[in-house]
Structures are given as structure tokens and as C-alpha cells.
């Protein structure tokens, strides 16, 4: 800004006009990542064969559906300055459990309910240990990651557990207005958690806790309760992702979801969620998830050698974060 010195005379008391302009800038910044994604999408559509086709776009959406669901809750987790490595294991455990229980009881509904409850329980334990015993979230969830993975193996004897009740498969493969159910569920997650983040006291409190937990506590935020809720919901949604995955692949597999947690966290960070807490946006996370999925999809369509895909993935991650960073720098200088 190189305005005439006149502005210096009333620097802070901005006019209504100036306030509006500053706000506009902030919005532009908030949505710059979306711009990046749109450009990426257009370029790929123009250059990569089959990329811009309904089948492919649906496939892309399906491929990120599990990550997308859990990214919504991971966003809360990171926004409150926490961290959760256990989600991948929970995905596997929930899938296995759902298959086992459905088979044993003959009821898919019971299977799903038990899995979701188990996921919520895992999340609750994470949250309680972290909030109440004040153990570092990284270590706590690294530990539960091991433990829950172990449970998945133990429960399944290391074997894929097939589901006998075929109605279970609808969850993963049925279509509704042209889109498969998992995609709808993911979209629903984005809407629900977007609203939760931006429009409810729960979301605002999450951000406040991430910004400064001590201050939030003194301002009357039920810090421990919110943190536990965040983990509990995350466990629940991870279990939901696990159930849907099991339904998609028609069996519960104890070794599914390995490396899932890092993908989810990457998507969030790509989407501008700060690991230092206090900053998050649902549109950012959506775009983060989409960028990750799109890049992977396009690389496969372009038949890029697997080994070179590693380079591309790493490179994209860096570039996307760098662009975001440059934007922030402009903002804070």
C-alpha cells in the first residue's frame, strides 16, 4: 500500500470503505487455494485424456471419500492443536469388527452400530488420555495406533473377514442421483463439519482452544470436554470410513488403512489448517483433499512410472504449501 500520507492521519479509524476493502482482501486470501485447485483442474482437463469425464470424476471422488470424511474431523483435531495418528488403525478395526459382528448377529445394523461405538470409544480413550492425563497427543495416538491395529489383527486372526449378509454391500456401492453412497456420505461430512466449525459454539471453541488453551479455559470454554469430544467424533467418523471401506471391498481387512493418517493430515495441512492450532477452514480442507486425489489420479492417467510418482507427490506437496505460504507472508508483512 503506497497511499498518500493523508491516510496516515487517520490510520486506524478506517472509513467504512476501507474496512470493506480490507475484508474483501481477507476473503480473497481465504479462498486463494480454491483458485489453485480450479486452475489445476482446468489444466488437467485440457491436457490429460479421460481426466474430464464423468466416470473419472466419480472415480476420483470415490478414491478420496475415506480420506475426505476423516479429514473433516482431523481438521478439528489439528485446529485444537492436537494430532491423531490412530485413525488408520481405527478404519481397519472398525471394518473388521463390523464384518465379524454382522456375521455373528446376522444384522448389518448391529454390526455398523457396534463398529461406530468402538470407534467412538477409541476416540474417547485418546481424548481422555490427552486431555486429562495431559500426555502428548502424538505419543498417545501413536500408542493407540499400535494397540488398535493389534486388536484388528487379533479379532480377525489376521484374515480378511467376509460378510455373508449381502445387503451390507449397498452401503459402499449403491448409487443415488448418479453418485455412489460413499461420496454422498463424504459430502455430508463436509457440510456438517463445515457448519459445525463456522456456525456453532463447538467449532469456535475448538479454534479458541487451538489458539490459546489457557485463555480459552479462563474464558469459560470447557476445554477438556471439547477436546474429548473432538477425538470421540474423530474416532466415530474414522469407524464410519472403515465400515464404508469394508462395504466397498466387501470384507473387513485388518491391514487396511496403513499410512491413512499421514494422508489425512497432509490433506488438512495442504488445505491451510495450521499445525499450531487456531486456524482452519472447511473449504481449504476440501480443496486439500481434492488436490491430493487429483494429482494421484492424473498421474495414474498419464501412466507416470510408479517410482516417479513419489517425486511428483512430494513436489506437489511442497509447491502447494509454498504458494499458501507466500500468500500468508504478504498478509503478515
Amino acid at each position: 500500500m503506497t497511499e498518500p500520507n493523508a491516510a496516515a492521519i487517520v490510520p486506524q479509524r478506517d472509513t467504512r470503505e476501507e474496512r470493506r476493502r480490507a475484508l474483501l482482501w481477507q476473503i480473497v486470501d481465504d479462498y486463494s487455494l480454491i483458485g489453485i485447485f480450479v486452475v489445476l483442474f482446468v489444466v488437467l482437463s485440457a491436457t490429460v485424456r479421460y481426466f474430464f469425464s464423468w466416470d473419472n470424476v466419480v472415480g476420483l471422488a470415490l478414491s478420496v471419500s475415506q480420506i475426505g470424511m476423516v479429514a473433516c474431523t482431523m481438521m478439528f483435531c489439528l485446529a485444537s492443536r492436537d494430532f491423531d495418528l490412530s485413525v488408520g488403525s481405527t478404519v481397519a478395526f472398525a471394518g473388521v469388527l463390523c464384518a465379524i459382528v454382522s456375521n455373528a448377529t446376522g444384522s448389518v445394523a448391529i454390526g455398523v452400530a457396534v463398529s461406530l461405538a468402538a470407534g467412538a470409544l477409541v476416540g474417547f480413550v485418546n481424548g481422555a488420555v490427552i486431555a486429562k492425563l495431559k500426555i502428548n497427543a502424538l505419543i498417545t495416538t501413536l500408542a493407540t495406533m499400535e494397540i488398535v491395529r493389534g486388536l484388528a489383527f487379533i479379532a480377525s486372526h489376521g484374515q480378511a473377514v467376509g460378510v455373508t449378509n449381502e445387503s451390507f454391500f449397498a452401503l459402499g456401492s449403491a448409487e443415488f442421483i448418479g453418485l455412489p453412497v460413499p461420496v454422498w456420505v463424504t459430502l455430508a461430512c463436509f457440510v456438517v463439519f463445515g457448519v459445525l466449525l463456522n456456525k456453532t459454539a463447538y467449532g469456535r471453541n475448538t479454534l479458541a482452544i487451538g489458539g490459546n488453551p489457557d485463555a480459552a479455559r479462563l474464558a469459560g470454554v470447557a476445554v477438556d470436554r471439547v477436546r474429548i469430544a473432538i477425538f470421540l467424533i474423530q474416532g466415530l467418523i474414522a469407524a464410519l470410513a472403515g465400515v464404508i471401506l469394508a462395504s466397498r471391498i466387501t470384507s473387513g481387512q485388518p491391514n487396511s488403512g496403513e499410512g491413512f493418517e499421514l494422508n489425512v493430515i497432509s490433506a488438512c495441512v495442504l488445505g491451510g489448517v495450521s499445525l499450531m492450532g487456531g486456524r482452519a477452514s472447511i473449504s481449504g480442507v476440501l480443496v486439500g483433499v481434492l488436490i491430493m486425489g487429483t494429482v494421484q489420479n492424473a498421474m495414474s492417467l498419464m501412466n507416470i512410472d510408479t517410482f516417479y510418482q513419489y517425486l511428483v507427490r512430494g513436489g506437489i506437496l511442497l509447491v502447494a504449501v509454498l504458494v499458501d505460504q507466500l500468500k500468508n507472508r504478504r498478509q503478515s508483512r
Partner: protein
Amino acid sequence: MTTSGSPRLEFRHIGKTFPGVRALGDVGFQVRAGSVHGLLGENGAGKSTMMKILGGEYIPDEGEVAIDGQVQHFRSAADAIAAGVAVIHQELQYVPELSVMENLLLGRLPTRFGFVDRRRALAWTRERLDALGVDLDPRARLKQLSIGQRQMVEIVKAILRDATILALDEPTSSLSHRETDVLFRLVRDLRAQGKAMIYISHRLDEIFELCDAATIFRDGRKVADFDTLEGVTRDTLVQRMVGREIDDIFGYTPRAQGDVRLSVKGVAGRAVPLPVSFDVRAGEIVGFFGLVGAGRSEIMRVIYGADRRTSGEVLVDGKPIRPSHVRDAIRHGLVFCPEDRKEEGIIGVRSVSENINISARRNHLVAGLFVNDRNEARTADTYIDRLRIRTPHRRQEIRLLSGGNQQKAVLSRWLAEKDLRVLIVDEPTRGIDVGAKNEIYNVLYELAARGVAVVMISSELPEVLGVSDRIVTMCRGRITAQFDRASATEENVLAAALPEGAGSTAIRNA
């Protein structure tokens, strides 16, 4: 003394703009060697920004800094240090896990064959501390020290750099009186050695006591320069700073008082093991005075529920508050503004509006869940206007506001409470300019007039005497005396705040 006429340090046409905020515009002034130059201005006037430019932390958009006539181009703090500049920042910058010695020698530990020469470093540090007359254990870790001691370390760190130019940005905001005296002595010594110094404070008596010359900023511009403070009155300074007359900064008028609102009965906590009891009436402002570490903050935190209550009862309008449960206190209309603004008050990366609405929003939720954005915007704008919080808009991250404005926003958080009954403020005017102090006092009066019971902790005796209806003194975790406004004097209040046998100890330590 090397009081040459030519300036040692000169700021020329400095301008600095942050997104949405022009912090400085075409500002310049000069500082002579062997002088202490006071820098005054309201919160957000741009003082700290200027010091950060001097310290190499910010690069100005326009203008330049010259030392002994030589134009400097600092690109980093290291550049400024190399040029002989030392800045003590308003926000303390120490490393909590390291020792006093290591903090003092941060960035320049003496080494031998690449290894830190601890023995030499320790000896040197001891020697210098002794020479300066500062009583600090070089081996203690910073996190073990009180805030005041930490601030002392910061000051000593800057002095030990043997810089020719020294800037102190509100160095006394958390110093005890003894430490303040030590500081003043040090500053005078340095002046005698010919250093050029800039001294920023909102306490005008300190300015008069210490400074040879002064510059006043307002809204990012220079509004006045005083080559000497001889014959300049306090009122002149205030008038130039605030842009209006404030004849009586306290502006106290008596109020009617109602029944007992807050009743504290035998309350104790870990750090204040002895039970404490007192009452506050509706419409009454009670000032708590004591020395640093007297336990005032601690007992208030226990009352509020921020720290664990081990015994006793707290009643608001006769209804008991659950111990160790902040939200119960808030629900009963009892709220608390902590003294450590940065650590416990603000949520830095969130907006001004969020910081104001965080608690009160629970009364305006739609369907018990959704935030009422319109209402919150209105609330935020109301307090931004009413307390004159300087911010480009309500969505600005609060960490980007100047300290005083952050304080006002935190206070607004509680003013926005629908059913406020008891307000406890801990050092509410620490680091706040005269004009804003006056505004904050007016807010307290207004609340009291509405029937709120106000407790104000303050370490500034004049403030306690000027604002309170009643004064309670504490010492070593105990209430030692109470005074009506009419019967309180500096002497008797202070005497009651001192520990038994204080006189003799004081003399011994002095």
C-alpha cells in the same frame, strides 16, 4: 559526560504500514548521546513499531535510521546488535528452559576450542551482575523466576551488550519497586557513560524522573518534541498524547452501594494455604493492594475456579459457586480478567470479535447450538467503538493489536456478559496509556453503578487509592488490613502491605 550537541541516533521520515494499519507515517526524531529520551503515546501510537525498526526486526517502508550521521540498513536483529543497538522489547523475549547466564549471553557464549567456557562465562556474569548491583542467581533457569525477575534479566541482557544505543520498551510494567529503583540507577549510570537511550513508559512520573527529552506519538505521527522536560507539566504531556484534557485521570465519584454480592469465606488454595475471607457489595469497587507475590492473583484465581480450591466457600448473591469450575462462576455472573494478557487473556490468532464474544455467545445461541453472527458483529462493533479499540476491523487477529488495545478487548469480553454480577480484574491497566486508563476506570464505575461488585488488583498504589471505594491489603497470602476510601493514605496502606519487620529487612537489603 559526553553531551555533545550532535545526535547519536536519528530517525528520519520513517513510515511503516501493516495490512489495514498505517503504524507509522513520516516520523522522525533525534536522540543525543548521554541522554534518556522519553517516548510517549497512546496504545497503538506506534512506539513499539519504531523500536522494532531500530532493533532490525522490521524494515521500514519509508525513511531511514542514522547513527552518528551514518545511515543504517538493518536487515535483521543481528545487524542492529552489530551496530551497537540493544532493544528491550515490550514482549519479553527469553528462553525459559535456559539459565540466567545462558540467557544473558544468548548468541555470544564465550567458547574455547569450540567448547563453551562455562567457568569463565559464570565468573564474568557474576562479576557483572555484582557490579550492576543486581541480585540474580546466574544458574537459575528463567522459568523458575518471577515475571519481575525475568524482566530484570532482559534488561541486564541488553545492558551487558555494552551497546551505545539502548531502547527500553515499557521495562517497568512488571517490576517491583525495588527492581524499578535498581533499573533507574542503572539507566542513570549508563547515561553518565554517554549512552543514548530511549525510554518508553505509560507512567508519566517515571518519564519525569528519568528523561531529559521526550517525543510524543499519536496515531503513527509525531505530535510533539521536547528538548527538555524542564517546566513541562504533566497536563501538557497528557493533552498532547490524548488530544484532549484529562484533568483528573481517576475521575472518581461516590456511588450508592447495595447488599453483599460477593462473599468469600475461608477460601484457600495450593499457593495460598491460609484461608481468606472478604465481602464485596453491589456497586462497590474494592482495590486489592500488595507487593509482588503477595498472593492476590492466586486467591482471585482460586475464587474464580481457575486454580484448585482446597477449602472455603464463594457465594454470589448468596448462591454458592462450585469450586475449581470456571464455567459455574461465569454462569453466576462472576468473571475474572487475568494479569498475563498474552498467556492467559487473548487468543492471539483469533479475531477481535471472537475474543470479545467467546463467553457471552452462549446466551445468544440459535437453537442452543448455532452462533448468532449478526448479534456478535454488533456486540464487537459496540465495544470497539465504546472502548475505542484501535483495529482496522473486527476480524483482525487480536495479536496484531497493540497491547493496550488487546487489554480493552479482553475487558470487553466480560462487559458483554448479560448478567454480570462480580468482576475481578487483575492489573487491568498494566501497559495501558493514560487516556485508556481513564476510559477503563469509567467502565468500572459504570459497571459498579449498575450494581456490579468490582474487585481490582493493582500494584500501582495511586491507582488503588484513586479508584477504590475500599482497599484491602494482602501480604504473604493473608489479608492484613482494610481501609475505607476516606481513611486510606499511601503510608498506612503501604505499611499494611509490608510483612512484619519489613522495615529492618528493607534496610538490610537496600
